[in-house]
Structure formats: structure tokens, C-alpha cells
């Protein structure tokens, strides 16, 4: 078969909704796009543990602490599912870590914002995980098999993340005036960055068309963002709180909520490393990796030694 035949066979599979698997032929750019997207996604899960890890020791009750621990452990797991999905495309785990630690690879900008009060744990679960789920549910049908399978597993687990967040806010919203103010303050700080999680608007997202053609993406950034706004506005009413957007208004004709302009300058600033916590997050990651080196080395040495010993025992027996 020539490259053209391979390309045609690939296109046909995509059109027929047949998943692409690791050893199938795929265009170089499809592979590159997936490596970038899946590794970014994995990095986001791993860095995403940091803002919440900040609150594990300060959770207000044993129940909340157990829940938060389980959530953060899930995020580690999600990162691992995604790293191994990316590895099937031929990139090594260490290469991906290097890209993260050197700042070459990106992760979701949302994790570059600080978590200043306990209400932030609620807002992150409700809004940040809510936005992530909106995106991830769509990715369960992405064309690359290992990525889609990882997403299915992740979506099953994420649902509790959003529910526990909403529960935190709901409970606080029934509390004292100070607690209610904390909830509103957290919502005010996390709302806009959550909308930015869907990425640049469609007219500024040059890769969207190709990703849609390859069925890597199933919906555009703006479509998913709109869907998120529509469901979240209704949920917010249950909390009796407001979303910090005076332009938020039901549009009868469109059947959707209209919302105000996103501050893209802020978005690009944070993406490019100038958010409130970019430096702190990367330093924490790099430090964890460096501090774990002796453990990795020791495990390696132990395994080498055991191999040697079992080798010499075998030769004695012979």
C-alpha cells in the first residue's frame, strides 16, 4: 500500500466511526495532535492535585477530608490513565514529564489560580470539574481508542467530584452570613476562569476544524462553553447565589443564555506563564519529581540486584 492508500483507509475509518488503535497507520499530524492533547490533559490532572492538596490538612471535618483525599487520589489516577494512553502513540513517560517540568508542555490554566478559602474546594468541584466533565463526556467518543477508553473511565469517576463540590457549597449556603459570603466570593473568582477552560473562541481556534474532521473533538469550544453556561445558571439558582456576569440573560430565540465577553487577555496571560500561581505549581511538580528520584533509583537498584542474584542461583543449580 502507498501512503495515499493508507491515508484513504484512515479517512474511511474516521468516516465510519471506526476507532483508530495504536498500531494502525495514522497521519503524523494526527499522532502529534493527540500526543499534545492527551499529555496536556494528563498534566492538567496531575497539576490539578496541587490547589486541592493545599486543603487536605485543613478540611473542616473528617468526612470532608476523606472525600477530598479520594478526589485528589482519583486525579492522580486520571493522570496515569492519560499518560499511558499517550504512551501508546510512541512518546515516553519521562519525555512527557520533561516537557511539563521544563514548561514546554501546557496544562489547564485554571490550576494557576490560588485556592484561598474552603469554599474554593466547593467551587472547584462544581465549576471546574463541571466544565471538565462537559469536555470529557464529549471526548468519550473521540476517534483514538485508548484516549476514548481512558475518558470513559474518567467520566465514571468524575461525577462524584462535581457532586461533592456542589454539596460543599450547598451546605455553606445554608450556613452563617460569613459562610454565604465565602460561597459568593468563591463563585465570583472561579466563574470566569471556568469559562476559559473551554479554550479560545471558535474564530480564534485554528486547530478546531482539523480536530473535528479527525473526530478527535466532537464539539467546538464555544458549543461546549454554551452548554456549560446553560446548565450551570440553573444549578446556581439552587444555591441562591449569583454568577458574576451582569449580561447573563436567557435568550428565548436562541434557547440559550447570553453571557458577557470573556477577558481573553487574562486567559493568554495565564497560558503564557503569568498567572498568579504558574511558578509555584511548576516548582511544586519539579520538586516532587526531584525528591522522588532516590526512591526510583533505589527501586531500580533493588530490581537489578534481585535479577543478578536469581541469575547466579540458576547457574549454581545448573
Amino acid at each position: 500500500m502507498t501512503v495515499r492508500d493508507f491515508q484513504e483507509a484512515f479517512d474511511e475509518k474516521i468516516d465510519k466511526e471506526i476507532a483508530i488503535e495504536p498500531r494502525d497507520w495514522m497521519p503524523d499530524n494526527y499522532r502529534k495532535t493527540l500526543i499534545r492533547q492527551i499529555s496536556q490533559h494528563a498534566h492538567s490532572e496531575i497539576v490539578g492535585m496541587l490547589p486541592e492538596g493545599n486543603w487536605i490538612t485543613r478540611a473542616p471535618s473528617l468526612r470532608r477530608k476523606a472525600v477530598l483525599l479520594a478526589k485528589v487520589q482519583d486525579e492522580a489516577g486520571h493522570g496515569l490513565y492519560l499518560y499511558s494512553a499517550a504512551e501508546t502513540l510512541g512518546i515516553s513517560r519521562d519525555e512527557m514529564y520533561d516537557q511539563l517540568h521544563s514548561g514546554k508542555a501546557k496544562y489547564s490554566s485554571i490550576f494557576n489560580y490560588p485556592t484561598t478559602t474552603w469554599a474554593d474546594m466547593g467551587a472547584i468541584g462544581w465549576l471546574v470539574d463541571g466544565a471538565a466533565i462537559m469536555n470529557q463526556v464529549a471526548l468519550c467518543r473521540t476517534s483514538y481508542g485508548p484516549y476514548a477508553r481512558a475518558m470513559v473511565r474518567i467520566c465514571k469517576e468524575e461525577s462524584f467530584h462535581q457532586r461533592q463540590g456542589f454539596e460543599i457549597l450547598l451546605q455553606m449556603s445554608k450556613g452563617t452570613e460569613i459562610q454565604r459570603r465565602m460561597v459568593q466570593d468563591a463563585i465570583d473568582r472561579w466563574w470566569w476562569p471556568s469559562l476559559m477552560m473551554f479554550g479560545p473562541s471558535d474564530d480564534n481556534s485554528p486547530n478546531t476544524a482539523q480536530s473535528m474532521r479527525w473526530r478527535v473533538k466532537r464539539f467546538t469550544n464555544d458549543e461546549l462553553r454554551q452548554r456549560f453556561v446553560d446548565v450551570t445558571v440553573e444549578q446556581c439558582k439552587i444555591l441562591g447565589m449569583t454568577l458574576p456576569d451582569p449580561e447573563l440573560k436567557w435568550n428565548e430565540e436562541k434557547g440559550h443564555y447570553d453571557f458577557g465577553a470573556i477577558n481573553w487577555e487574562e486567559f493568554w496571560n495565564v497560558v503564557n506563564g503569568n498567572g498568579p500561581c504558574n511558578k509555584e505549581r511548576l516548582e511544586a511538580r519539579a520538586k516532587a519529581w526531584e525528591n522522588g528520584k532516590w526512591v526510583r533509583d533505589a527501586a531500580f537498584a533493588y530490581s537489578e540486584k534481585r535479577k543478578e542474584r536469581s541469575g547466579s542461583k540458576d547457574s549454581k543449580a545448573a
Partner: protein
Amino acid sequence: MPEQNSNKNEWPLWEVFIRSKAGLDHKHAGSLHAIDANMAIENARDVYTRRMEGVSIWVVESKYIHASDPDSSGALFDPANDKIYRHPTFYDLPDELTHM
């Protein structure tokens, strides 16, 4: 299967298979890195069975898995393609015939 990378310091890659309950077979769940089989099983427990997804775990180093070539799957599976008489629906039998 994923290609083995030549990075010497990286722990080997393992494929994880999980039996979700007694009576069912082990099913591929994903992969992970570990230095040896014991660590692979412990890591698999943490990564793939946090919600009681399994009662048994198999791990095998990825390099030991041999797979058919996707590019020749047409020829490989060809012998089964034209033998529809292997399926019960191939046989034209009267509707009155029951318990069969």
C-alpha cells in the same frame, strides 16, 4: 501494543488485566510502569481498582505481548468471512419448531 522505549531509567511498562468478579474473565484495563511484578500488582490495585472494580489482577510486561498485525488483518481473518453457515440464523426452519 505500545512500543517499548529505550529510556533506561524508566521503569518497564506493564499491561494490567482485571477480573471484575468471580466467574468472569480477566479483561485488559490499561497499563502502568513498575519495577517488578509485585509493584505492578500494587500499582494496578491503586490505579485501576479504587472502586472495587476487581477481585483479581493479572500483570504482564508489555514487551511479552505479541499481537497480530493490523495491516494484514484482512487476510488473517479472511477464512471466517464467508462461512455464514456457522451461525444458527443461517438455517431456514419452520416457525412451529420450538426449543431449538
